[in-house]
């Protein structure tokens, strides 16, 4: 965790004169009340008086407010973005809490008591002692079908989700399969339709019967929702078109993992590519345990050296192409 201790990037005066974990205690209480309500009504979006955070909207302000409200001195925080601890935004948010809350940080999934995430659920299992905090850009699963908040709230109140089923059916009629690969809608506790945030549908099954508390914070839209431990979470599907997750023909080129979410890394400009685990901690641990991928050691070392030399986060090439709309 040495990279999290660096405070020299602080703007002059920043970090001083602010409350523990930035938010004032009254705000934290308000957010905790909303969290309790969210836990009591799994999948229901609780409106909350979201504050302006010193990071831009859309960059994790909701997740940060949730984390700031539940974090204490004894906590150990892990922050991931796209599954990796070393992506710039994850680094930035971890640094924010290291600075404003002086908490311990880690990259090891099992060591963390709170994990704040953007776009992934860790590959390693989590426990009842842990909390997973998701950053949510758009909490409303129906928004793409119905732009109006008033209408969406009515649909949730009446559990009227036919529109979503029809939309999924139209995909099957047009494409032969459901053309939603991330933000794939789920039913929580057989009651509320919920957006799992833009995690790939690969991660959806992990949410079901999950031992850890899952909290979701949407800062810009000012909503908090939750999935309590061991809650039923079901991805929408049809009897004749059951839900399926992504599968790769390849294994991780570095650690050889066969059943993880893989990032595609472009190696050259003539179509060369390899696949590596998106969960950087998971991949690193496996390699430390002696697992080896198909990529020859020399090539792996050369790749790591090349990427390291540029001091770019992993998968930079994929990232350059990956600025899709989410």
């Amino acid at each position, binding site marked *: 965790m040495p*990279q999290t201790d660096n405070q020299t*990037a602080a*703007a002059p005066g920043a970090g001083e004169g*602010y409350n523990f974990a930035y938010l*004032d205690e009254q705000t934290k209480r308000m957010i905790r009340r909303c969290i309790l309500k969210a836990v009591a009504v799994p999948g229901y979006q609780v*409106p909350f*008086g*979201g*504050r*302006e*955070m010193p990071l*831009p*909207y*859309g*960059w994790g302000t909701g997740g940060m407010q949730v984390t700031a409200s539940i974090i204490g001195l004894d906590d150990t925080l892990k922050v991931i*973005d*796209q599954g990796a601890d*070393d*992506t*710039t*935004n994850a*680094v*930035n948010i971890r*640094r924010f809490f290291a600075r404003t809350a002086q908490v311990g940080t880690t990259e090891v999934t099992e060591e963390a008591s709170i994990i704040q995430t953007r*776009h*992934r659920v860790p590959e390693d299992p989590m426990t009842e002692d842990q909390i997973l905090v998701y950053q949510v850009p758009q909490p409303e699963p129906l928004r793409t079908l119905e*732009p109006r*908040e*008033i209408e969406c709230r009515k649909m949730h109140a009446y559990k009227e989700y036919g529109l979503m089923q029809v939309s999924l059916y139209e995909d099957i009629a047009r*494409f032969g*399969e459901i*053309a939603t*690969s991330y933000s794939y809608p789920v039913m929580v506790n057989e009651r509320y339709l919920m957006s799992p945030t*833009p995690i*790939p549908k690969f991660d959806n099954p992990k949410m079901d019967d999950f031992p850890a508390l899952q909290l979701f914070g949407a800062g*810009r839209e*000012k909503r908090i929702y939750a999935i309590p431990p061991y809650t039923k979470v079901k991805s929408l599907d049809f009897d004749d078109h059951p839900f399926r997750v992504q599968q790769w023909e390849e294994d991780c080129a*570095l650690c050889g993992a066969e059943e993880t*979410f893989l*990032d595609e890394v472009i190696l050259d400009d003539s179509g060369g590519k390899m696949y*590596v685990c*998106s969960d*950087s901690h998971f*991949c690193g641990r496996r*390699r430390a345990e002696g697992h080896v991928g198909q990529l020859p050691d020399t090539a*792996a070392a050369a790749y*790591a050296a090349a*990427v*390291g030399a*540029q*001091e*770019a*986060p992993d998968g930079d090439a*994929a*990232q350059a*192409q990956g*600025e*899709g*709309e*989410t």
Partner: protein
Amino acid sequence: MYVAVKGGEQAILNSHKLVAEERRGDAAVPELTLNQIKEQMQLAVDRVMTEGSLYDRDLAALAIKQAQGDLVEAIFLLRAYRTTLTRFGETQPIDTAQMAVRRRVSAAYKDLPGGQILGPSYDYTHRLLDFALAAEEGVGEPEAAVADEAVDDSIPRVTDILNHEGLIEEELAFGDDGPVADLTREPMAFPAERDMRLQNLARGDEGFLLALGYSTQRGFGRNHPFAGEIRLGEVAVEFVPEELGFPIEIGEVTVTECQMINQFAGSAERPPQFTRGYGLAFGHCERKTMAMALVDRALRARELDESIEYPAQDEEFVLYHSDNVEASGFVQHLKLPHYVDFQSELQLIRSLRRRHDEDHREAAE
């Protein structure tokens, strides 16, 4: 080792250093002072205070300097500071009829009590670049002559004059004792009442409101507005400390107020009469307050039983998208890595293309 790739931290630190260097610019040029910004870029300061929702010229000037003159970024800086401040209470409503007026114009009457006061305005300048301002030695100390006659102490609002005849609707009776919505503490809820709407519009992006207000004039709305009155000046801010129980003046603020007068054909319950649209901003922000007043009026469609057909009348559309700090953050978050979702989409599109090819091959056979 692959896991050892740690670029983010150092890159961020270096990026901040580059920003600091670029902000300073050519070191041979004297550094900009906050006083210079405060005194010579007042309108930028005014906009940042208005949309940043914080009346503090020094902090607004600091934000503008820190943001290298990017006003939306400066607004964000001021908002992020404002949100940490303690709230002592609510002031009494300001009384713009008691304003120390520096500028007051009405497009509805040729002359009226208190008179037309042009004041400082770009309205009748010829937009010719003034090369005198480019001179190294500066412009000296320009001085405007003082008028022979003092401005009236109290200048009645045009809408109040109209009100004597009952030609314009009453100012919405909003219980003085009732709590006023504060969307920086509570999330917006729909349908939005006028207090929340006006707060949202006051904080809203000037460019967004300008375009929306314009759309109502061009045909995407039926506003038929008249600039009933625009006034600029200083008003006292009063606060009732609990231990005293009566209002005391705690300072004054400069505000621009715009009262738009709009036709209204009447409904089953209400006779034909003029209706109001309202705009208010810190400092001198005329374009903003006029646009705000147009949009405020357009958003009263539901209340006035008018059909809602145009973007400017649609409260969810307007109020959810007016905030430039929210909009800027969310648009720019597309810069963040999305490669997990993109990978998912890559897989999907490859699969869809495979299916497409198969279908076409079958069709060809």
